[in-house]
């Protein structure tokens, strides 16, 4: 079943590429600075997190000398979480938002989640490149362990896209899903060590937090950028296993309900 879907999507690669490009362009059409806003917005965010937290609020990460460390810690968790969250949020709305098109045109529906993931990836790449640029400018050169971000990003995409498709299909039939996920993502965010390092959380809470599949991913990113060390690959296996299961479930659910989706929109 996967080859069929992939072949269909490949046949529409032009449409996928065009849609991603168009979405990117349409955001800043008719603005004076145009694509510059793609840089200004995330840059402002990075500066706020790093400068405000580390310089003004003097927030320090226990056991690290560098006074930018907490800002870097924050950015490596927040930016990647933002990417993850955007993919899920867009995934759950992808069939509802394109309802009109689904009802009127016959085209491979799997292209829609692919477009939404790729669009998120483009945004994330810009933001993340700026972050790395910022690290270079401030003298916090990442070392060779930075290569670890590629498998990490792929893992996040597999996880979020699968979850997004599942939610996207369910959302067509049960509109509560969208509301519900808004609440869940709030809790999920705070149950992931992004704002705080795991070891500052209460002991009982830590036991639960490590069960969160995103904990190991956030820690892996933080490890790369704050400490320059390779991720603990073993800790990522459970997350990968969950992502794979979600992926299979997503494809089966999509396959089974794809026809019904149109009737329900």
């Amino acid at each position: 079943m996967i080859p069929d879907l992939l072949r269909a999507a490949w046949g529409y690669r032009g449409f996928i590429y065009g849609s991603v490009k168009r979405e990117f362009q349409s955001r800043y059409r008719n603005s004076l600075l145009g694509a510059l806003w793609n840089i200004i917005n995330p840059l402002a965010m990075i500066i706020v997190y790093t400068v405000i937290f580390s310089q003004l609020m003097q927030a320090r990460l226990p056991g690290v000398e560098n006074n930018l460390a907490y800002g870097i810690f924050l950015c490596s968790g927040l930016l990647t979480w933002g990417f993850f969250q955007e993919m899920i949020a867009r995934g759950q709305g992808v069939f509802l938002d394109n309802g009109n098109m689904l009802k009127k045109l016959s085209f491979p529906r799997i292209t829609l989640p692919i477009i939404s993931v790729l669009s998120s990836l483009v945004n994330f790449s810009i933001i993340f490149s700026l972050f790395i640029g910022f690290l270079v400018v401030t003298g916090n050169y990442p070392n060779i362990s930075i290569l670890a971000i590629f498998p990490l990003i792929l893992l996040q995409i597999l996880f979020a896209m699968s979850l997004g498709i599942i939610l996207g299909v369910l959302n067509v039939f049960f509109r509560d899903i969208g509301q519900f996920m808004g609440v869940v993502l709030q809790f999920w965010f705070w149950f992931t060590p992004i704002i705080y390092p795991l070891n500052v959380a209460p002991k009982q809470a830590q036991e639960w937090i490590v069960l969160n599949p995103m904990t190991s991913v956030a820690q892996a990113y933080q490890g790369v950028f704050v400490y320059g060390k390779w991720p603990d690959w073993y800790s990522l296996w459970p997350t990968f296993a969950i992502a794979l299961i979600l992926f299979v479930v997503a494809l089966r659910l999509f396959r089974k309900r794809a026809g019904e989706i149109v009737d329900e929109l």
Partner: protein
Amino acid sequence: MSEIQVVNLGKAYKTYPSQWARLAEWLIPNSKPRHELKWVLTDISFHIKPGEALGVVGMNGAGKSTLLKILTGTTQATSGHLSATGRVAALLELGMGFHPDFTGRQNVYMAGQLLGLSMEELHTLMPSIEAFAEIGEYMDHPLRTYSSGMQMRLAFSVATAQRPDILIVDEALSVGDSYFQHKSFDRIRQFRKEGTTLLIVSHDRQSIQSVCDRAILLNKGNLVMEGPPEEVMDYYGAMMAEREQNTIRQERLDNGKVRTISGTGEASISSVVLLDEQGKATEVIEVGSPVTLEVRVDINSDIPRLVLGFMIKDRMGQAIYGINTHRLNRELIDLKAGDKVVYRYAFPANIGKGHYSIALSLSRLDSHIDTNYEWRDFALVFHIINSTQPDFVGAAWLDSSLDIQRS
């Protein structure tokens, strides 16, 4: 070459008493179905041969759109089987995938890709798309500056840029100015000539009869009739008039045509003749000669108001001329059962040579849609011959005079 084969096709939507029932059905394994099926199409079978054109007619809610959606693949049939070979293009909703902030050209690429064309194909087709749309420099302006007609031109040009093997057209097409309407219809006809199999949904008698080889009539999700477009349209017209009380009857005439008679029968036509100058019944008439249409009507029960209308149709079934006593302010009031009325319409036969038929209607008001006492297609067939006037072409005899000055 491509054909469409539809066998026992049915479509049902699931209806659940509540969202919780749906959830229960999804989550509880091996649970009994908690939904009811609401059938909108049942047991539809037809076959369109390669290169043939089929018209689909039916009232709103008859299931036409659902059938089209199944044929184009946007929705799946619940039962039955469908096979279509070749590239299918659908003109259901024009302009899908357009974005107002991008130029016409950018939108053509986008919409074209959505239709399954590749970038290279679109590069090649672009000049012809541009030429057909005739929107000039607007091609490179943002779509939001377009008028709706221009958007429609562009959308149609993209959707038909490449000749499809099967083309499915919804009546949505009747937008845009009449110039472009003609142009787009010409393109559809051209496709047909080159072998495209065509399926058209419309309410419009003219477009069905002028393009289609055959037509099917849908009613409440069932296929109720299949046959030559004219017969189906007559039946459909009668069906529109009825809906409730009465029956529709069709008789096969000697010339192979089918006469459709419908109505409540409260008033009925007892005889129809066409009289020449000498008052003799005739079926062959000289161009321009005066004739009288004599219609005898029996009143079978008391009726408040009676209007008689007649319409002359050419052999394609297109209306040539029609009028009724309501429009002439000569309607009759308060008729009693047993009354007899004789109507005589006199007119010069200023029409071109060929076969014509006359349809009659007895109704209460201007239109037979309201109360239809009797509607009769092919009430009379006559021929116009031309042995006295110069040989002219067309349906109207305008008896032009000529003045030439040469210096």
